[in-house]
């Protein structure tokens, strides 16, 4: 929920509650004041009546008086106020009246006086007052609210701009964040902090890139020297079989070392998102290409390739990454395949499945994508290929799932549901 919506909602709900309460209170207060006024009038009427004789007729301009003869003793000696409803004989409508009833004892009987005073004019007044009490503040409050909202929105403009720019923040981009300036101290401070962070992050990122390059350089050069020296030795005449095997073993080890180093540097590059150019990749074509490239391996193991393409399987990502991703998956599916096994590729619009026959997995399926986890002790596997696959999927917005059903291993790639 937006800050503005949240504060507005709070404001509105609290206001409605208090205005309702206020209007109700106001209504009862006015009602009470009006009743008091009417009561005074009725009491005034009583005083006039009391001075008159019972037989005299009275003419009151503002109230009606009715008389009843009671057989009993007086009940209301002090008199009682009441609200009553009387049917108007002229039009048959109900009308509200305020009444004052008192009994007076005469010789020979009790007379009950009921003084009635129509409340219709005052009711109208009360209604108008209440309406005023409700409507004007609501109008006032609405105007206040709108003005307030506009003002907050204007003040928050800088804040929203900052959020927008931070969302689009990318360490790979060289340009600065360029946040708006604000006359609000807090936002100005916030933007200063972000600007400083932006600078620091980019500097650190540059250092990291340099470090990566330098590590690579520092390690690869000695490895190059070792390789060339072993090669030199290997070409000497009169080497025994044992010596050649030792040297070749050394060469293999150095090569593995170098490849592991390269793979780790590559992973570091992936983590630093150094592959940012994206284009639409046709996965059907890509998989086909890779299978063709690896044809000798497939032939060697006599693997049956089953390629199903039920739709255009394309995705927008970096081409180098897509190549590495598919190559690693296809190689993996061939390497861990059985002799005379099968390789199934299913390309559809929504997903890409690469499945292969093989031995049951002897490591935990969840750990499969971790670095240096390898099934068995395959001599050619560095245990890093699948963690590269996972990283590529992560940064390209692809969901990768691994399933193992009996002896079939399946990698399923799907477009990740983007979370905003």
């Amino acid at each position: 929920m937006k800050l503005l919506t949240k504060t507005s909602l709070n404001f509105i709900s609290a206001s409605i509650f208090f205005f309702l309460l206020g209007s109700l209170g106001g209504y009862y207060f006015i009602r009470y004041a009006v009743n008091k006024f009417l009561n005074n009038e009725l009491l005034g009427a009583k005083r006039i009546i009391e001075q008159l004789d019972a037989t005299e007729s009275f003419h009151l301009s503002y109230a009606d008086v009715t008389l009843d003869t009671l057989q009993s003793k007086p009940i209301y000696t002090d008199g009682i106020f009441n609200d009553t409803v009387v049917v108007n004989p002229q039009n048959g409508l109900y009308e509200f009246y305020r009444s004052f009833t008192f009994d007076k004892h005469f010789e020979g009987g009790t007379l009950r006086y009921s003084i009635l005073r129509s409340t219709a004019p005052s009711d109208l007044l009360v209604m108008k007052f209440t309406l005023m009490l409700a409507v004007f503040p609501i109008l006032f409050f609405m105007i206040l609210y709108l003005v307030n909202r506009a003002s907050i929105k204007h003040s928050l403009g800088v804040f929203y701009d900052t959020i927008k720019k931070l969302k689009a923040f990318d360490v790979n981009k060289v340009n600065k964040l360029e946040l708006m300036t604000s006359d609000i101290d807090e936002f100005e401070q916030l933007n200063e902090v972000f600007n400083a962070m932006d600078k620091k992050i980019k500097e650190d990122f540059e250092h990291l890139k340099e470090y990566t390059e330098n590590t690579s350089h520092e390690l690869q050069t000695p490895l190059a020297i070792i390789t060339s020296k072993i090669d030199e030795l290997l070409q000497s005449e009169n080497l025994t079989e044992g010596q050649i095997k030792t040297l070749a073993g050394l060469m293999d080890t150095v090569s593995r070392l170098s490849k592991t180093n390269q793979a780790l540097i590559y992973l570091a590059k992936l983590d630093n998102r150094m592959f940012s150019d994206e284009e639409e990749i046709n996965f059907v074509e890509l998989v086909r290409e890779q299978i063709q490239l690896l044809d000798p391996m497939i032939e060697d193991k006599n693997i049956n390739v089953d390629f199903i393409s039920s739709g255009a399987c394309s995705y927008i990502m970096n081409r180098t990454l897509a190549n590495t991703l598919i190559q690693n998956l296809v190689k993996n599916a061939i390497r861990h395949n059985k002799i005379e096994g099968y390789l199934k590729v299913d390309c559809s619009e929504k997903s890409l499945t690469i499945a292969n026959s093989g031995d049951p997995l002897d490591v935990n399926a969840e750990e499969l994508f971790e670095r240096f986890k390898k099934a068995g002790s395959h001599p050619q596997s560095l245990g890093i290929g699948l963690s590269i696959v996972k990283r590529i999927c992560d940064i390209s917005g692809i969901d990768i799932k691994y399933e193992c059903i009996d002896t079939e291993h399946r990698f399923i790639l799907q477009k990740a549901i983007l979370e905003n």
Partner: protein
Amino acid sequence: MKILIVEDEPELAKSIKAFLESEGHICEQVSNLSDALHLVDSIFDIVVLDLNLPDGNGLEVVRKVKSKGIKTGIIIVSARDSLDNKIEGLELGADDYLTKPFQMAELNARLKSVVRRVHFKGDDKILFNELTVIPGEILVTVNNNPVDLTKKEFDLLVYFIANKNRVLTKTGIGEHMSKDFMDYGFTDDFIYTHIKNLRKKLLKAGCGDYIRNVYGVGYKFTDAE
């Protein structure tokens, strides 16, 4: 061939020089950028160039050679394997880019390929007894009869002939074979199939059995008994 080696790592420079001289080339070696810039004024057929030099970036040498229009092949040898570096080097006019560490056989193969491209414009022939390889046409003949090879097998054969009489380890051959498509995290174990197929096709065409297995650790292309 006259070759200039620009490499600041003395041990590596020594190895490269010794190797190239053993192949019959005349070599000059410098270990910094200013010497290299000074020396490229004289004619070299090939420059083997490291990029990270103590006094600057080796790409300066590429710029100078290309601006003068000298017919010199340039092979960049660098520990930087990022695509950007490669593209920059090749765009400036370098003829090939080799990532450290590399094997001498690989440098040799690239060197010969660059020599063919730069100095023979690709229309020379590689002869080895009854074998004739025409790289420009991707054609191999045995006693003038063409042999049908895949691109990988052809590449492998050129690599073998360029490094004849040398022990080539499986690792080195694997690295050579996978140079077109970088793969990270896997080593190559399928060269055996390529070699087996190549050998079969050559033997069938009546070619001598030149691809010798060396104690199971590598191969040697030779016609020696």
